[in-house]
């Protein structure tokens, strides 16, 4: 990850109407708490922790009732503002999908510059274990009803929590998309 990638990534997300907040790993729960609506469901994160109020072992009924779903992203693609969401037994795919708002947590270290890098990452993974990954870029969208609308089937809003690497600059922690 380079500084240029981070700024490209944020610029792309901004143009997609995706809000980004940044902070160190130990502020992760706080950043999620600010970004998540209520009720919220989630899947345990690889890095950082979830706030108490996020239900991490939801029933299907709780998933259906949830406003927000919180999951990890395995990778970010700077040039496109995409995040790679990997399906797993814990339910990352449904939690990121059957909700109105998806709060996705990405470590800056997992940011790659461009699409070919993402598929270089995916290839060995797909050939080895079974990899089911969706590269999500902005919210669900359709133009089939006579105009662009977000939230056709999937989330209407996406919020990215970007976890800084240790020692990274702590300033500039809030970036909001123009609504």
């Amino acid at each position, binding site marked *: 990850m380079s500084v240029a990638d981070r700024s490209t990534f944020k610029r792309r997300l901004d143009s997609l109407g995706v809000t980004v907040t940044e902070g160190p790993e130990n502020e992760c729960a706080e950043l999620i708490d600010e970004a998540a609506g209520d009720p919220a469901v989630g899947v345990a994160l690889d890095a950082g922790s979830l706030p108490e109020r996020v239900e991490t*072992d*939801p*029933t*299907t*009924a*709780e*998933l*259906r009732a949830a406003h927000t779903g919180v999951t990890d992203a395995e990778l970010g693609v700077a040039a*496109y503002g*995409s995040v790679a969401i990997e*399906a*797993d*037994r*814990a*339910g*990352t*795919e*449904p*939690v990121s*999908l*059957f909700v109105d708002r998806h709060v996705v947590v990405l470590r800056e270290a997992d940011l790659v510059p461009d*699409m*070919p890098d*993402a*598929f*270089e990452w*995916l*290839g060995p993974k*797909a*050939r080895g274990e*079974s*990899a*089911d*990954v*969706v*590269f*999500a*870029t*902005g*919210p*669900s*969208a*359709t*133009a*089939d*009803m*006579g*105009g*662009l*609308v977000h*939230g*056709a*089937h*999937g*989330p209407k809003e996406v919020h990215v929590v970007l976890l800084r690497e240790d020692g990274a600059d702590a300033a500039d922690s809030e970036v909001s998309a123009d609504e």
Partner: protein
Amino acid sequence: MSSDATKGDRIRELMATEGDAVAENTRGFNEGRIESTGRLDGYEELKADARDIKEDAIGRLPELIERVRESVEANGGTVYVADDAADANRYITELTAEECDADRLVKSKSMTSEEIEVNEALEAEGVEVVETDLGEWVLQLADEAPSHIVAPAIHKSREGISELFAERFDLDDPPETAEELTMFARERLGELVEDADVGMTGANFIAADSGTMLLVTSEGNARKSVTATDTHVAVAGVEKIVPTVEEFAPFVELIGRSGTGQDVTSYISTLTPPVDSPVPDFQADDEPLADGSGDDRDFHLVLIDNGRMAMREDEQLKETLYCIRCSACSNACGNFQSVGGHAFGGETYSGGIATGWEAGIEGLDTAAEFNDLCTGCSRCVPACPVDIDIPWINTVVRDRINRGEADPSQTDWMFEELVPDEEPAGLDLSTRIVGNYETLAKLGSLTAPVANRLTDAGPVRAIVERVAGIDRRRDLPEFASEPLVDWFEARGGAAVPRDEAAREAVLYPDTATNYVDVDRGKAAVRALEALDVHVRVPDLPGSGRPPLSQGMIATAESAAEDVYAGLAAHVDADRDVVVIEPSDLAMFRSEYEKFLPEASHERLAEASYDVMEYVFGLLENGGDPAALRAPAEGTGPVAAGKRVAYHPHCQGRTIGVSEHATAVMEALGYDVRVSDTECCGMAGSFGYKEDYYELSMDVGEPIREQFGDTDRTVVAAGTSCTEQIDALLGDAPMHPVELVAPRE
């Protein structure tokens, strides 16, 4: 003859009912493509990569199909290779209706599933099929067919969808805004997805190395259809296979940009099924979501042949298999923008490449229904992300249709003199008349002005319309009594002696310039001589463009050989070949590659120039611009002054010679505004045909909107453009060379 009343009527009806919605959407997509690909670094390299991957994959398809089978089976899935639609449907219905005992199957958008008509097959076995893509759902409710391969309901207006919902769901207060309509659909479809039994998707690409399939979507319905059901059936043509996962990358970067102008769509799903996600049980919803139910998932990949392996063996249709169904060729096409896929399409596919798909899958008869709508303007060629020569596929299919439909018993001996082509007897008369335009022009010139007076006479036009399908609202070309070649000889040949010349050039006397628009030929001679070029205007045969446009490939090929024979000695003597008519230059540079030995084609292509490109080059190399005509000398109406409106030729744009005219005019001090319309809609003979007159005028309409009340001097390079703009604006434009050439 060609005037099949139902065809013309159908086109006129669709233009009236769906044309506006289709035009707005497709033009928006096309502009989006130009912007989005313009922002992409290395666009041309990515296209070349994508093309290489497809060539490689189709080249070793049988091997890759076996690799996919091994990979998917190793992952725990099943692969079934279906010979045809019936075979695929039998497998899918047995699986769904019998093994799964499914009540409902939810589907994401898949053109291949439409090709095999799997919905009908499933419903016949009592399985409810729900299209979950919003556009497809609207069409399912309306019982209509897609009008576009990517955005299937673009022919429907927002108001129309609101009325449809009100009627189907008996609503007193139906949703009206795009937001309300979308949320209504989200809710209804969400419920239907929750208790579905089987999920069906297509696949945009499949990697043989891992069995990973890639889906390009935006709404999230494919993700939901897969996640919410424990049985996933993916239906894909065998041509979707690429060797490795890494080779997905260029397609991911190109497909959205090429189609709707999105850099990337919201969701690129890369699935190596069966997926690990738990299956949410919306019935017993008090149970934890993560209950290990992902272990029971079942996956079936149904690969469809349905004519594709035979297309692979067909040297001409094979290129169709490289198509990634992005819709760029639909959106870039003037005719498609006016009529949409309900006219410009076959059983399943629509747009320029549909001719290849429908000919290969359904047969020539289906392709014949809409193949005429490709005019060969070539604007789809630079838009195609895998560089398919789409006009050529249309030409090949047209040639096969010509030959297939020809009835050898028909006695058309009386036309044999008039139409000395290489085509089979019995070929449609309208096709042959246009295809033999050169012979007609020669004859018309010999007999002018009698021919001109005759062709304008009312009763004669009525006969021409009835017999040859030429619309009587069109002005027919007026033949000059002294062809350019004769004029040049009569004036004593070159005015600039060889030993004083900066360069030597052969001005190619294309059929239109030689027999009809001789003035632009004379202007070209003056412009070149003013820049110290020793000019020759030898008698040379036509380029073969008119017969090629009618699918008369053998005739066009023979013309190419004759032209090369006539030009070879000049090229050998290092003379430049200067061409006025862009459609003829496009033949030399592009299509002749198919007709001439490689070295011959290369020599001719390299020696040939568009006349304005050549003038540009002469000025760049020290030619004196003062020798040409600057605006101060007064051009056109006095008010126009130095202001010019320029409509470049479609094929000239494709081969990259349209901008030289702008550069030359600007260098001389003209203020040039360039037409935004990529093709005028006339396209040689197309706009003359009775069935297509209104369509042709509609395609040209944006030119009228842009230049209709301009006080600028209008210039255009193509003969067809000249006639079309005359019809649209009420005044014939001149060729740019006529603007800049010194006066006589």
